[in-house]
């Protein structure tokens, strides 16, 4: 290439000629666009599911709050904290207090109740959380969006916004039955889209009585000092007391661990499906670009005869393949955004064996990743045809009329 500006002019000119002839090759070009749109659409949708799930759990909790479980337990369902322990824990000086000197802590009971999704009859595990009055003070993100709070000592529940959307019979005023007990739904709450919105909440004492439990699963509390030193002080105090065999985790750390297995599974699933589709789309792109070159071999040979170099031909074919891929990638990303972003779904969290309702999240990073996949497929599909175009024997191709 003798002069870079002239080389660029050659590339631009050949690329323009290629692109102007696209309408004559609409069918094969659409194969590339649609194939890559499919890959990107599926990839972004599945990853958006994983992202939504991860986001829902990751947005649960505040760094200044801790969850305390029985030592050795990694989830509330496998944990057990008895009444005496919760009293001791709440009395620790590392736990914050409200204006009246009451500890900002809530000992909580979590059980699974069976509820079908709307329009279905098959039951699903929905988390039912018995909470102490402190639960509302420590979780300042909680807002009642309909109805009122449950009264203490009464079989009333409030329902998370997403649980109410996903599961049948959770409208305010409805009555639901679990384990021979009837409960009235008196309110719906929101917690900023976090995992608690998939739950049903009731008074802990009433829940313990109804479900015949004698202890709690966990205690959630606000640290008096939210720093690392405050957490260390609480952990040290617990270790010093032989009656307490308790693990302490900041809430975000705990919920991130809960998200881990399923989020990874969804991500692996997304990449696997997309990889298989990408192989198909790459062959589609290869086929399209080979046929584009076959149909233009006389043009390419004529340009080579006139004096155009092989490199501009390679680059221009690659640009065409990448542009088609980009259009496909953008279309796939747009479809995923339009049809998936914000759509609600609930699935079983393997860590807790409970349903978690969450929204698909099509983030800019996922769209960028989708476009990167599209360009990769375009590059893989365009490279060999581009090299073939540049190596086309001019004297033979000129006679291929």
């Amino acid at each position, binding site marked *: 290439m*003798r*002069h870079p500006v*002239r080389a660029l*002019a*050659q590339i631009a*000119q050949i690329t323009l*000629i290629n692109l*102007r*002839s696209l309408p004559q090759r609409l069918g094969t070009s659409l194969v590339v666009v649609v194939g890559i749109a499919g890959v990107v659409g599926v990839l972004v949708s599945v990853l958006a599911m994983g992202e939504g799930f991860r986001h829902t759990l990751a947005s649960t909790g505040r760094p200044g709050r801790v969850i305390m479980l029985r030592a050795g337990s990694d989830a509330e369902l496998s944990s057990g904290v008895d009444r005496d322990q919760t009293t001791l824990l709440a009395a620790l000086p590392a736990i914050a207090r409200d204006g009246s000197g009451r500890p900002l802590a809530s000992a909580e009971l979590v059980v699974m109740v069976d509820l079908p999704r709307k329009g279905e009859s098959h039951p699903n595990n929905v988390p039912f959380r018995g909470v102490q009055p402190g639960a509302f003070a420590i979780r300042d993100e909680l807002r009642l969006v309909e109805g009122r709070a449950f009264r203490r000592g009464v079989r009333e529940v409030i329902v998370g916004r997403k649980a109410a959307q996903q599961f049948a019979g959770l409208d305010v005023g409805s009555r639901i039955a679990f384990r021979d007990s009837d409960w009235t739904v008196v309110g719906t709450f929101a917690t900023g889209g976090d995992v608690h919105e998939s739950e049903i909440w009731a008074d802990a004492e009433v829940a313990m009585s109804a479900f015949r439990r004698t202890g709690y699963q966990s205690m959630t509390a606000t640290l008096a000092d939210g720093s690392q030193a405050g957490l260390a002080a609480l952990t040290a105090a617990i270790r010093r007391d032989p009656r307490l065999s308790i693990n302490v985790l900041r809430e975000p750390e705990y919920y991130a661990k809960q998200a881990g297995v399923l989020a990874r599974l969804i991500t692996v699933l997304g990449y696997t499906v997309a990889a298989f589709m990408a192989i198909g789309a790459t062959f589609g792109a290869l086929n399209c670009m080979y046929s584009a070159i076959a149909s233009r071999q*006389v*043009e390419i040979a*004529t*340009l*080579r*005869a*006139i*004096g*155009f*170099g*092989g490199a501009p031909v390679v680059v221009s074919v690659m640009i065409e393949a990448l542009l088609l891929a980009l259009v496909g990638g953008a279309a796939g990303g747009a479809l995923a955004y339009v049809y998936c972003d914000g759509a609600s779904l609930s699935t079983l969290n393997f860590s807790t064996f409970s349903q978690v309702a969450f929204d698909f999240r099509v983030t800019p990073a996922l769209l960028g990743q989708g476009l990167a996949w599209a360009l990769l497929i375009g590059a893989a599909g365009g490279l060999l045809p581009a090299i073939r175009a540049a190596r086309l024997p*001019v*004297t033979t191709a*000129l006679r291929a*009329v």
Partner: protein
Amino acid sequence: MADLVQVRAVTKSYRRGGETIEVLHGVDLDIARGDFVALMGPSGSGKTTLLNLIGGLDTPTGGAIVVDGRRIDRLSSGELSAWRAAHVGFVFQFYNLLPVLSAQRNVELPLLLTSLSAAERRRHAAIALALVGLADRARHKPRELSGGQEQRVAIARAIVSDPTLLVCDEPTGDLDRATAGEIMALLQMLNREHGKTIVMVTHDPKAAEYASRRLHLDKGTLIADGAGA
């Protein structure tokens, strides 16, 4: 007149399957500057192969080819591309215009390989189109032109960068008799009035009559060399 093209003991062979086919057997040829040479002969005689070698589209298996004092048989593929861009204009049987470009843009193509500005390219292309009598068809796409007009545009493209040598492969092979005569008259005008050296392959004796020299090939060997018009 000094020789523009010197072909010395040129051989060309191809491998087809496991077999080597020799198409040209030691051809010697001199073409003077300003000459108009018609290469004739039956199909498979090697005339297009010889034309491609002189035009730098292919390289010989043996021998030497010198054009305007330069050994082109020793040039690499990239060097040959650059050499063709600077020294050779091509006219093909089926015109080989790019269908998506207007006549003007087709003619401008070789100038993209020069340092001319866009405005200069447009001006040069307009002059070339005017020279072939198609100034009023500059904006037309090839499909909007007749066969003869398309070949005129192809000739304008071949001369727009003022090459040393015009190489024409059956330039009238796809045209009716009357149009073929017009095209040959145009090539003759470029040869006589503008001093272009032309090497043309043709099957058509009528077309060959416009050349100043007629060469006959048979089975890869030059068998006759005669004066023409």
